[in-house]
């Protein structure tokens, strides 16, 4: 039986209704019922009468003994066709509706898939946003931790400095008075060579001690500037002063052995957070000092250049060393928090992280140029019109 895609309601042909075998069988049984053989065919032959079904001529019947026999046979075939057609109609309609339902299901399935994909994309976006927020929170937490630590260290330093300031004041003044007394005493004693020697030595001792108190006073002053404990969070800062204080502290840390070249140009005051800026300068200078100590210079000497200069709308602070430099494979990670190449316990891995955050907090930026073995140059750029 041929398979054609047709509407269920199209008028069926003989081929739609009966297969070749079935038609043969129908011809055979009808012929044995009739007095003479009959033939049912789709094409009209001479003497054939139509087999009608539902107003449609579905076949032609020929043969038979008489016209009456032909018409009775035709009637019987029409009667049979009705049941065949009924089944075929129902089957075709069922097929049509099943196809339509399936197509509808597929459409819905596609729509569902599209919407699922949309929700998945949305969920990914949300996850990304959450991740971003989490990283912001972690960053802020780190900054808070750093600034709290810095503040407590600063408070301690300022407290110590304040306590030291008074005794140093009267020690220094007493020493000066004592030196005058020595001069007076010298005049009232017989001038023997022994006495001369004793007085000169005594005088030198007191002078050296006074020099010591001056140095103590200067360290105390640097500490106060560094911690900026008596200043509000944001104030107008003199960057050169902050740099000098930081440089003194780094010198103290490294036994006054560093060769620090200062090229500080005239700068306008900059609105900023002095203790954070000081901490940044200290970190940069300290890094430079470490880089020098990590390199074998032979008979040559490591140097640190500390420079400030003014551009059209920004100030640049440059800290440059000719030390060991940063290896290529580390350069991408130098700003990562807790990333350090130093042995455990000697570096937190936060120096550059905090330095760059401070630069960003002041509306500026921090860039690093480095070549392994040749040195490192860190440039801190701050806008002149800070917030």
């Amino acid at each position, binding site marked *: 039986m041929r398979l054609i895609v047709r*509407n*269920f*309601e199209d008028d069926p042909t003989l081929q739609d209704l009966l297969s070749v075998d079935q038609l043969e069988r129908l011809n055979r049984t009808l012929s044995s019922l009739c007095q003479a053989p009959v033939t049912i065919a789709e094409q009209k032959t001479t003497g054939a009468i139509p087999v009608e*079904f*539902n*107003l449609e001529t579905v076949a032609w019947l020929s043969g038979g003994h008489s016209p009456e026999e032909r018409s009775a046979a035709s009637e019987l075939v029409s009667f049979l066709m*009705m049941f065949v*057609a*009924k089944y075929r*109609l*129902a089957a075709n*309609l*069922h097929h*049509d*509706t099943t196809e*339509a*339902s399936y197509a*509808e299901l597929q459409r819905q399935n596609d729509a569902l898939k599209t919407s699922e994909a949309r929700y998945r994309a949305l969920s990914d976006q949300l996850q990304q946003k959450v991740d971003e927020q989490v990283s912001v929170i972690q960053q802020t937490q780190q900054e808070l931790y750093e600034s709290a630590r810095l503040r407590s260290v600063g408070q301690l330093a300022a407290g110590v400095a304040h306590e030291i300031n008074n005794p140093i004041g009267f020690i220094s003044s007493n020493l000066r008075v004592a030196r005058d007394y020595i001069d007076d005493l010298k005049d009232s004693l017989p001038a023997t060579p022994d006495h001369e020697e004793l007085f000169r030595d005594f005088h030198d001792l007191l002078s050296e001690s006074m020099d010591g108190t001056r140095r103590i006073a200067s360290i105390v002053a640097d500490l106060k500037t560094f911690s900026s404990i008596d200043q509000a969070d944001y104030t107008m800062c003199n960057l050169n002063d902050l740099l000098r204080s930081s440089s003194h502290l780094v010198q103290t840390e490294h036994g006054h052995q560093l060769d620090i070249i200062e090229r500080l140009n005239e700068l306008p005051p900059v609105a900023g957070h002095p203790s954070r800026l000081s901490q940044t300068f200290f970190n940069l200078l300290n890094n430079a000092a470490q880089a020098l100590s990590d390199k074998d210079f032979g008979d040559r000497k490591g140097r640190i250049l500390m420079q400030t200069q003014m551009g059209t709308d920004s100030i640049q602070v440059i800290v440059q060393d000719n030390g060991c430099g940063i290896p290529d494979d580390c350069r991408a990670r130098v700003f990562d928090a807790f990333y350090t190449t130093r042995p455990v316990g000697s570096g937190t891995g936060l120096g550059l992280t905090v330095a760059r955050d401070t630069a960003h907090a002041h509306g500026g930026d921090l860039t690093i140029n480095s070549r392994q073995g040749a040195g490192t140059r860190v440039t801190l750029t701050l806008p002149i019109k800070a917030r």
Partner: protein
Amino acid sequence: MPDYQAHDNKLTLKVVFYGPALSGKTTNLMQLHSLLNPERKGELMVLETRDDRTLFFDMLPIGLRGTSGLDLRLKLYTVPGQVQHDSTRKAVLSRADGIVFVADSQPSQQDNNAMAFGNLEENLEKVGLDIDTLPMVVQFNKRDLPGVVEELELQQRWTSTPWAPLMMASALQGNGVIESFRALLDRLYIAISDEFALEHRHGIFRHTFIDGLSACHEADRAKL
């Protein structure tokens, strides 16, 4: 849409009996089968299942010939009224040329009527037909039952629709079935006669169309 096959000079029209479950669509068709005596009439094909509920559809073909030899056929279909057979309803409804909406007159069935009518609107749209231009007759059936909604009330309710006046019927008794069918034939003729030049080319006038397709047996005609 009418199916015209030029090589056979054959025009096939499709009329669908639509409506809520158990409103009497099949009964309408069975009555037409027994009452009508048109020029040509085929077998009534009833595809019922358990409890005499229509599972697929029923179909009755009738026809007449024009003076040009036009083989004009009208296939009358019913749809299954039960809600779950919606895809079958849609398949039967596709390419319909006219609708007889068979509603149930019992007060308890008014919601079902409304739902079935909504479903008809929806399905017509899905198969690309326009309810406002499609020839349609609304029949309220089962007028023989006691306690049915008053005709006046029904007529008033539908008065501002394109389907007023409503046809009243009692299909089981054979009342109003032929009248509903003739009303539909009238609207159908108006809708299609020009397109196929029924009058000029095929000699089928409005009255030939209506009378030819709704001719009744003599005995029944006397009864009407």
